[in-house]
C-alpha cells in the first residue's frame, strides 16, 4: 500500500507515492535523488539528515514521509540561490569548517534555522543550536566560527574570534 502526497521541496512541488513506513529521508534520497541529505544513523542521534520542515530543523529520518503532506522542505540542495552560494556556505568554505563533509549539509541546515530566527547569536547559542549535529572531524570550532561569520553578528564592531591565542603562522 502506498500513500500519495504532495510536498514542496526546495520550492518545487513534488507528487510522491510513499510506503507508510518510509521516512522523509527515504523519500528525499530514494524518490527525489536528493542525496545531499545524509544517512548517518537513521534513528535521530547524529543530525546528518537534518532538513528544514516548515522552517524548523528536523531529523528527516524521524519523520514519516506520509506525514509531510503539504509541507515545505528545504534540503542542502536548496540552500544556495541562483546568484550563488548562501553566506553560510561561503563561510563554511572560508573558515575551513568542512573536513570530511558528511555532517556538513545537516550542520548548514541547523545553522540556517538558527540564523533565520536569531540573526545575531552568541557563541553559546550557536553551540546549543548545533548540539544535535555530531561532527567527528572538526571539533566544531571552525563550524561555530563559520556560523558566527555568516551571522549579522559579524557586522558588529569588535566581532572576532574568541579571545585567546592566535595561531602562530
Amino acid at each position, binding site marked *: 500500500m502506498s500513500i500519495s502526497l504532495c510536498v514542496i521541496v526546495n520550492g518545487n512541488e513534488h507528487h510522491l507515492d510513499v510506503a507508510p*513506513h518510509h521516512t522523509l529521508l527515504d523519500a528525499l534520497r530514494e524518490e527525489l535523488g536528493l542525496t545531499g541529505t545524509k544517512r548517518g544513523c537513521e534513528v*535521530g542521534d547524529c543530525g546528518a539528515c537534518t532538513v528544514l520542515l516548515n522552517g524548523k530543523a528536523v531529523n528527516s529520518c*524521524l519523520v514519516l514521509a*506520509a506525514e509531510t503532506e503539504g509541507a515545505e522542505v528545504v534540503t542542502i540542495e536548496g540552500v544556495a540561490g541562483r546568484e550563488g552560494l548562501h553566506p553560510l556556505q561561503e563561510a563554511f568554505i572560508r573558515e575551513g569548517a568542512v573536513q570530511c563533509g558528511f555532517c556538513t549539509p545537516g550542520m548548514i541546515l541547523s545553522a540556517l534555522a538558527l540564523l533565520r530566527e536569531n540573526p545575531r547569536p552568541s557563541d553559546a547559542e550557536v553551540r*546549543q543550536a548545533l548540539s544535535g549535529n555530531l561532527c567527528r572531524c572538526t571539533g566544531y570550532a571552525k563550524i561555530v566560527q563559520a556560523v558566527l561569520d555568516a551571522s549579522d553578528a559579524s557586522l558588529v564592531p569588535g566581532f572576532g574570534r574568541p579571545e585567546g591565542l592566535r595561531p602562530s603562522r
Partner: protein
Amino acid sequence: MKSFVNVNPKSLDEAVAVLDRARAQGKKAALAGGGSDLLGMLKDHLVQPDLVVNLKSISGLEGVHREGERVRIGALTTLDEIARHPLLVERYAALAQAAGLAASPQIRNVGTLGGNVNQRPWCHYFRQGFPCFKNGGKMCYAVAGENQFHALFGGGPAFIVHPSDTAPALVALEAEFKVMGPSGAKIIPAEKYFILPREDVLRENVLGENEILAEVILPAAPSGLRSTYLKIRDRQAWDHAIVSIGAALEWEGGRCRKARLVLGGVAPIPWRVPNAERLLEGKSLGEALARQVAEAALAGAQPLAKNGYKVPLAKATVRRAVLSLLPAA
C-alpha cells in the same frame, strides 16, 4: 522496519475508535505524535505495530492555551514551543526548562509533550532487545549487569528509570492529564498517571491500549510559586538524565508555604519525595535546611552495584534546586 497501515483520524473519538477496533481484532496499534520515539523503536524492531495512528491529523491537540488562571497544553505541542512559551517560561519555569533540556534541538522541534511524557525507557537492555521484563521477558538484566543508570527507588521487578524530562516537572507543578478513552475524557493527576513495574511491568503509565493522552492542564500558578528543573547528564545534548529534579516551591512572607520535589532518573516513575517536601513547609530556607532536605529526599535509596554514585549526585541536585528557588529578597 516492518510496514504498517497509516491511519489519519480527524478527531480524538475517531482515534479512540480506531484503537478500540484494533484491539478487538487483535491488531497492534501505535500512536504517533511527533513520532520520534516511535520511529526509533520501530527501526530497532522493539515494536511492530500493524497500524500507526497519526495524531497530527487531529486538529486542536496543539498549543498552549490560557483558560482562566489555568493553562491547557495540547499533548501535541512541541517541546520547542513549550521551552520558549513566555507564559510557561514565566509562571511554570520547571516545565519550560525541562522541555528545553530534553533531547536535541531537532527532536524538540517535532517531539511533543505527550510523546515526552509517554516515552519508553532508555535502559540499554530494553533498547537492545534483550528479553527483559519490559520486552515481555522474565528477567531484569540490569540487576546483575550494567546498572549504573538504573533505579535507586521503586525498582523491581524491572529497574528502569523513567526517561522523561517533562514528567517530573509536571508532577511537581501538580499538572493533570486529560485522557480520552472509549467512555470519554477523564482527568488524572500527573502523579497518579505513572505506575511502577510492580503494578504492570509492561507499561510506565496508566494509559490503556485504547486511550490517548490528549492534554496537560496546569493549575493556576499561585503567587509566590517558583519552580525549576535541574538535569545532570553525561553530555549537554541528546542525553537522558542521570539524575534530575522538578521542584516547585510556594513562598509566602519568606517562608515556604508548600513544596513539591520530584526526582527524575532515579526511579521507574517521576519520584516524589514527600518527606523532603515536609521539611521545607513552613520554614525559611537556608543552606543547612537545604542539606537536610537533600538527605531526606534520598533517604531509603536502594542502590544497585554500580549506581551508588547517583545518591550523592541526587542530593547535590536537590540542594541546588531548592536553593535556586529562594524567593527574591
